[in-house]
């Protein structure tokens, strides 16, 4: 019987409150005790000065498998997730082919299990082939374990079609997850429309391109009663729309990404496509609104939108480079460095809330009798920004000073990261 006792950590468990000087005992993949001054069982690991909470959960990862394995695959993406403190990640369905039918979703989940570093949870398309014309095989996807439905990378432009998807999924309590960018307003857009884009002479994506889609979708969520989740909120106006929908009692949730929390559009002046993503980096006032939204709870959670692209794709002139940056390995450090959350809120936005959205019962809380998916995080240590374990290196964080390091990640009772080092796990090709 394998037993481990994590000692003297600041622990966030069950009730979501942080308790100092707490021990957590794990035996055979299960948490068997949480409390003060517990008798050591098995190996003792000192966690003085560290935070211990449920393993992180990302509801927005691009693993790129199947079809674009030169950017990332489920093995390399799982390594990046584990290195970042994650024990579960939801795979976006904009692969090649797109995940619009049951067998494709099962393939993604199966590959995740074979790799065995995090739970890889498939999301499914709303429309067949992400083409915005017909409904995807929603029942098949649901029966294959899909709870989050999205055409991420694109917005469902046809409100009538989106309404039918919402009505259909409301019955099964699936979640409609939208990438909110109006294609007409954003046409040709390379960055946030504003003072910087005007000076740089680049076509802009106005904030309204995001906000009118969110406003439309909220109206449809009201009409259909579906659970509705907004991806990568980037504008202050969007935060206000979501706050109003919540005040009204609608079942609306929202995420912010580490890059939108960390950078504003002044970074685009570098002309370096490491700052190019969709939605784009917004104005400093928008960044402030996102941080405040996360503190107040209007924005429920942090999701990475980890979007790998190979160097030969990203190291280009700005307008030739694809949108997207990676983030799994630095999301926790960014939140810790720039948002200013307490320990309990840190685990709420990075673990509990995303696990709740995706209905992942084994994740998001630490409870006696629960599966040992946990993270030990040192909030004072410097994050590793010198390299990445992802297949792609399109990270704006490399070379930055960020505070907060993953010390141990435990996935189903096994260390995937131990003392800051990624652990070899049987079944994972290097």
């Amino acid at each position: 019987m394998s037993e481990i006792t994590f000692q003297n950590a600041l622990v966030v468990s069950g009730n979501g409150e942080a308790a100092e000087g707490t021990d957590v005992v794990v035996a055979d993949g299960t948490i068997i005790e949480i409390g003060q001054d517990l008798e050591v069982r098995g190996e003792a690991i000192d966690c003085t000065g560290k935070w211990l909470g449920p393993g992180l959960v990302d509801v927005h990862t691009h693993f790129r498998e199947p079809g674009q394995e030169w950017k990332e695959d489920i093995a390399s993406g799982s390594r990046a997730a584990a290195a970042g403190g994650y024990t579960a990640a939801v795979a976006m369905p904009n692969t090649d082919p797109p995940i619009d039918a049951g067998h494709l979703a099962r393939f993604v989940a199966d590959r995740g299990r074979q790799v065995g570093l995090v739970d890889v949870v498939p999301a499914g398309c709303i429309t067949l082939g992400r083409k915005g014309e017909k409904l995807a095989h929603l029942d098949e996807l649901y029966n294959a374990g899909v709870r989050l439905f999205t055409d991420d990378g694109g917005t469902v432009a046809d409100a009538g079609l989106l309404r039918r998807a919402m009505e259909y999924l409301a019955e099964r309590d699936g979640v409609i997850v939208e990438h909110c960018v109006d294609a007409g307003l954003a046409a040709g857009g390379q960055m946030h429309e504003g003072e910087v884009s005007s000076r740089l002479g680049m076509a802009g994506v106005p904030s309204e391109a995001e906000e009118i889609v969110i406003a439309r979708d909220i109206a449809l969520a009201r009409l259909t009663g579906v659970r509705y989740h907004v991806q990568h909120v980037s504008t202050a106006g969007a935060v206000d729309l979501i706050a109003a929908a919540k005040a009204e009692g609608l079942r609306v949730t929202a995420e912010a990404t580490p890059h939108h929390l960390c950078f504003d559009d002044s970074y685009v002046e570098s002309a370096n496509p490491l700052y190019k993503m969709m939605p784009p980096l917004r104005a400093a006032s928008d960044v402030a609104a996102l941080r405040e939204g996360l503190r107040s709870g209007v924005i429920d959670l942090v999701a990475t939108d980890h979007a790998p692209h190979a160097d030969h794709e990203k190291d280009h002139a700005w307008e030739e480079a694809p949108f997207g940056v990676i983030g799994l390995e630095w999301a926790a450090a960014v939140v810790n460095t720039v948002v200013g959350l307490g320990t309990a809120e840190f685990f709420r936005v990075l673990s509990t809330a995303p696990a709740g959205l995706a209905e992942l019962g084994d994740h998001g809380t630490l409870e006696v009798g629960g599966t040992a998916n946990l993270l030990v995080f040192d909030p004072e240590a410097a994050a590793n920004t010198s390299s990445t374990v992802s297949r792609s290196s399109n990270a704006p964080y490399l070379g930055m000073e960020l505070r907060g390091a993953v010390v141990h990640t435990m996935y189903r009772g096994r260390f995937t990261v131990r003392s800051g080092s990624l652990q070899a796990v049987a079944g994972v090709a290097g």
Partner: protein
Amino acid sequence: MKNLLTMEGVKKETLESLLSDADEFYDVMHRPIPKVPALRGKTVATMFFEPSTRTKLSFERAAKALSADVLSFSPGTSSLKKGESLKDTVLTVKAMGADLMVVRHTSTGAPWRVAEWTGLPVVNGGDGAHQHPTQALLDSLTLKQHYGSLEGLRIAIVGDIRHSRVARSNVWAFSTLGARVTLIAPPTLLPPDMEGWPADVSTDLDPVLDQFDAIYLLRVQAERGGASVFPSVAEYRDRFGMTEARFERLKPDTIVLHPGPMIRGIEIDSGPADDPRCKVLEQVTNGVAVRMAVLFQLLGGTKEDE
């Protein structure tokens, strides 16, 4: 000065030094043998990833007048068609011995990336709708030749400001040299947020037509009419074109500039275009002179009398 990438934030002394050297090279161009050995042994690569005729020719003429060798790159006949990346292309040309690159590209910021990748001095020959600094220098030289100085001049820039790297360069150069600039365009051809630009902005030309010492007309890209940026070319001409009637209403000594190529019948009618107060051909000549000054300064050339 390591590179010439932008006019934004460039000091007045730097501009004046370049214009002063350009004056000297203007004289060189008008000698019986218009050539000096200042950059003998140096190699200038003109890397034009966006089709261009006049700017590329002008840079190459300038390089040759300074006795530099020229490596000339055009997208139509190049390895780009075979899928080579921008980065590999410029590193390849660097490996052939280029000492300086002139870069034109459809993407904002491309010359900055080339400077970063190659470590060579880079001249921005036009990046997207962002900057075209040698155009601003040649326009400044043209104004200086006519008026002696830009100090206190009132200059209108009329047309597609939103998509114009010429406007974005000139607004900084002209204002740094002491002119007062007014940008005039229909609302859809103005940038969305001009906070901090050293210029006045108007959407109506006629009420202010007689206030300027120089009118700078931008090329209207007729295809933008199709993109519904303005209703039609005819309506643009009615409100913003330099028609005979508008030309009559200018102050008698007002000059007209245009970066070329001019589209007669849209932004300018033939009468004004062929009038001596229209300086387009002087601009072209001055283009060679300022590009000589830029190449000379960036490559650390020596003058004959030094």
